[in-house]
């Protein structure tokens, strides 16, 4: 998995209150499994997955597939002991912001996470996907889909109701985030805003290759 055979390395960061299911969510995405036992391995702090991204040309023809190496970073729960620092946020290109549909407080705290992101991420409007997790626990639901969608709309970010337990919309949420990021890269004429290390091209010589203008603004995403 860690061999160098890819075009871009993109780092995602999973955020949200403790207990909303960040680790399980990432585990479900990379391994397609739910691990209900909590993972006690100290030192594993990110998971990886290789995906192929295809952007479509203006004529609808699909372009060359780009091999993306996605790194998904998790917190270790250190946010209970200290605030997450700028250093923690700054290397991430995209953010999965999770809350627990059965825990209203975790939903109310989305606001705080958003302002932390706006403060510490590489720019004021980074790409974020909001996920209401644990949607399989319908009878314990404490946050309605309507209010969650309203909040996401207010911030102008996509929203998914996900289940790390059964996998519902987990990969869709990550795919949409990847799509937003690839589109951002294609869109930007002046790419100087891209922080060092967030996007790394592989086997190419420097920025020109990353910034190579793509044929279109139109990607595969339907959102």
């Amino acid at each position, binding site marked *: 998995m860690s061999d160098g055979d890819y075009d871009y390395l993109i780092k995602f960061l999973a955020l949200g209150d*403790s*207990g909303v299911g960040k*680790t399980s969510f990432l585990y479900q995405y990379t391994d397609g499994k739910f691990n209900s036992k*909590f*993972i*006690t*391995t*100290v*030192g594993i*702090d990110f998971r990886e997955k290789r995906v192929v991204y295809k952007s479509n040309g203006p004529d609808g023809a699909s372009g060359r597939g780009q091999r993306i190496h996605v790194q998904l970073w998790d*917190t*270790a*729960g*250190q946010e*209970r*002991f*200290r605030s*997450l*620092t*700028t*250093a*923690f946020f*700054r*290397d991430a290109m995209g953010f999965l912001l999770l809350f627990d549909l059965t825990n209203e407080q975790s939903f109310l705290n989305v606001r705080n996470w958003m302002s932390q992101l706006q403060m510490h991420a590489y720019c004021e409007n980074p790409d974020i996907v909001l996920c209401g997790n644990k949607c399989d626990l319908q009878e314990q639901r404490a946050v309605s889909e309507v209010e969650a969608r309203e909040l996401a709309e207010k911030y102008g970010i996509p929203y998914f109701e996900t289940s790390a337990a059964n996998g519902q919309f987990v990969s869709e949420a990550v795919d949409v985030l990847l799509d937003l990021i690839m589109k951002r890269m294609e869109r930007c004429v002046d790419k100087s805003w891209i922080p060092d290390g967030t996007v790394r091209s592989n086997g190419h010589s420097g920025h020109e290759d990353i910034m190579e203008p793509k044929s279109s603004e139109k990607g595969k995403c339907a959102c």
Partner: protein
Amino acid sequence: MASKPVWEQIGAGFVQHYFQQFDSDRTKLADLYTDASCLTWEGIGYQGNKAIMEKITSLPFQSIQHSITAQDHQPTPDSCVMSMVMGQLKADADQVMGFQQTFLLKNVDNKWICTNEMFRLALHNFGA
């Protein structure tokens, strides 16, 4: 047990008491700090009983368990005891994390209090 140096006994006794209180009812730790005590918690400094207790009691978890892996104690030139603890902790249902904590203990009016304390999680890949 009797052959252990006195600073070992004092340090080990303190560590046992401290973490037992921390895990059962953190508010009771107030007895250990004076207005001159200093705490550095993940790089942020707090001075005085009130500020220290505010920090400790406001940590956002319902339950916490500490497990001490190793501890070392030394006497200092001014008759204090310096203690270093290495261990693991688990807050609510989070994953287990390593931590290190250092204490300086002083005898004031026949009672051991904590004049200095430093805490760090043993995490290395999450930025400063």
